[in-house]
């Protein structure tokens, strides 16, 4: 797949988002800011699921840790939020290294469950340690004056998120990204070519955790509060659903999924208390009828229209051969 085809929609999106405050009102800019942060959260998750084939159910831990890093530094030590946002990926990354050390030893459902367990453990600590984190009262954060206007913080978020997504783009195009894709396709095959599978998976886990930490660190100043719900397991389900809706295999899939999620949540919360229920139903329909997600389906349609010699996915035979490798006498 050509990099131009993957970069072009990103640049169009960046230009659109940059122009947005000139086109819509302040409340919509706030919503767009929510979208940018959510998109980065989902994109960091898809480094694990889409690139490396690791289904983590505990990604919210790093999102929440990012949010609390900013909030704790601000309220306990008086550190302004910008240094806090720089510290967040370090804190989330170190925690991802510690958790990752254990979870990458497992595969599939066991990996998912253990990542969920660790995340819930961190959630329990944050939500019950009232003297330190404020428990479920949350912890207040106050942006400095220059970031208080909605548009100012929006552009700040846009810059940070763009840099992070640019980084993910480079990772995807790099040899490291190709190695993760190779491991996703067949870990044993990658191993006999000399790749230390666990180390690559751990590196992906740490990078994904650190970037989720960045997303979280942008979240608490936006809401001027860090809440334990940012670490709760339902928060971990959000990026899974967004990624499935947008398309696991497509680079911008999670961005499109996040847009759908934020818009739908906004519309639905004005009518019911169960936005995740509505989004879940939408994802169910998408997964059933568009298994490649919105972006994957559009890309496939685009390819067929241009009548390229190569269809969007390789033949099934190659996959079948890949599956039986482990168990052959």
């Amino acid at each position, binding site marked *: 797949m050509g990099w131009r085809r993957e970069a072009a929609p990103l640049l169009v999106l960046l230009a659109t988002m940059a122009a947005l405050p000139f086109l819509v009102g302040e409340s919509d800019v706030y919503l767009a800011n929510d979208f940018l942060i959510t998109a980065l959260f989902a994109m960091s998750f898809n480094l694990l699921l889409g690139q490396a084939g690791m289904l983590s159910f505990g990604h919210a831990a790093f999102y929440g840790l990012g949010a609390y890093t900013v909030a704790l530094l601000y309220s306990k030590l008086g550190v302004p939020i910008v240094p806090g946002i720089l510290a967040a990926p370090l804190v989330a990354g170190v925690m991802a290294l510690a958790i990752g050390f254990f979870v990458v030893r497992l595969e599939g459902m066991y990996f998912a469950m253990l990542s969920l367990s660790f995340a819930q453990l961190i959630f329990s600590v944050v939500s019950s340690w009232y003297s330190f984190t404020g428990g479920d009262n949350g912890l207040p954060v106050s942006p400095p004056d220059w970031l208080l206007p909605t548009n100012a913080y929006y552009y700040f978020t846009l810059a940070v998120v763009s840099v992070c997504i640019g980084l993910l783009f480079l990772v995807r195009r790099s040899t490291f990204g190709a190695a993760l*894709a190779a491991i996703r396709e067949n870990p044993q095959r990658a191993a006999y070519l000399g790749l230390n599978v666990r180390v690559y998976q751990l590196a992906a886990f740490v990078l994904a955790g650190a970037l989720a930490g960045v997303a979280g660190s942008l979240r608490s100043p936006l809401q001027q509060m860090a809440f334990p719900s940012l670490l709760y397991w339902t928060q971990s389900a959000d990026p899974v659903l967004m990624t499935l809706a947008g398309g696991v295999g497509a680079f911008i899939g999670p961005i499109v999924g996040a847009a759908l999620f934020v818009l739908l949540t906004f519309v639905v919360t004005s009518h019911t208390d169960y936005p995740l229920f509505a989004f879940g139903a939408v994802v169910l329909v998408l997964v059933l009828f568009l298994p490649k997600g919105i972006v994957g389906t559009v890309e496939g349609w685009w390819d067929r229209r241009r009548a390229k010699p190569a269809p969007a996915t390789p033949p099934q035979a190659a996959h079948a051969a890949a599956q039986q490798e482990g168990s052959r006498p």
Partner: protein
Amino acid sequence: MLECDRLHTYYGAAHVLFAVSLNVAPGTAACILGRNGVGKSTTLRTVMGLTPPREGSILFKGRRIDGLPAYKVARMGLGYVPEDRRVFAELSVEDNLLVAERQAEGGFGWTAERAFEVFPALQEFRTRLAGFLSGGQQQMLTIARALMGNPSMLLLDEPTEGLSPVMVKTLEEAILSLKREGLTMLVAAQDMHFAAKVADHLYVMNRGAIVYEGQRADMERDAAVIQSHLVV
């Protein structure tokens, strides 16, 4: 270069290899002949660390490698070309090669460009997803991919199986040119034709054990014995 001593390998409770011993001297090619399911692939997988032996020892360049994980065996300079052309179907030809690129001790300085010189057909499709290559091209890719690890020895599992006669010829020539460059090889094959061209040393397997061992010079003399193990 490679010394296997009385290897016993199991798949769960099933005993598959029975006291398999074989030696491959540096710069030579050995061939394991045998029908389907006699343990050729398992022998190569055992050497590679993919199905570790329960008993016996494997020395590579004088060092024990049995019990090491496959990635460490690969990094010591042992390249593996599995049967059935197992490429990374969702990666481009180029990425298939780049993923495997590393410097092993005593390698031959392989790069993607040099691999393309040996297999010019791959150069043409370098940006194509490997899943869309023909069978022969995929086999070229798995060999080129193994070379990218700069191995001093190559394990080839039935490299010409199921390919067209023209492709078989191309691959045989490529494998012979690699041998001339000094690459040590252990090749699994089903028929004597290929073994006669490549092998300095010959092993025949039947029911998980080595049943015949000889030099290339002995092949003609012992043809009847060898054939008797290859027919059902």
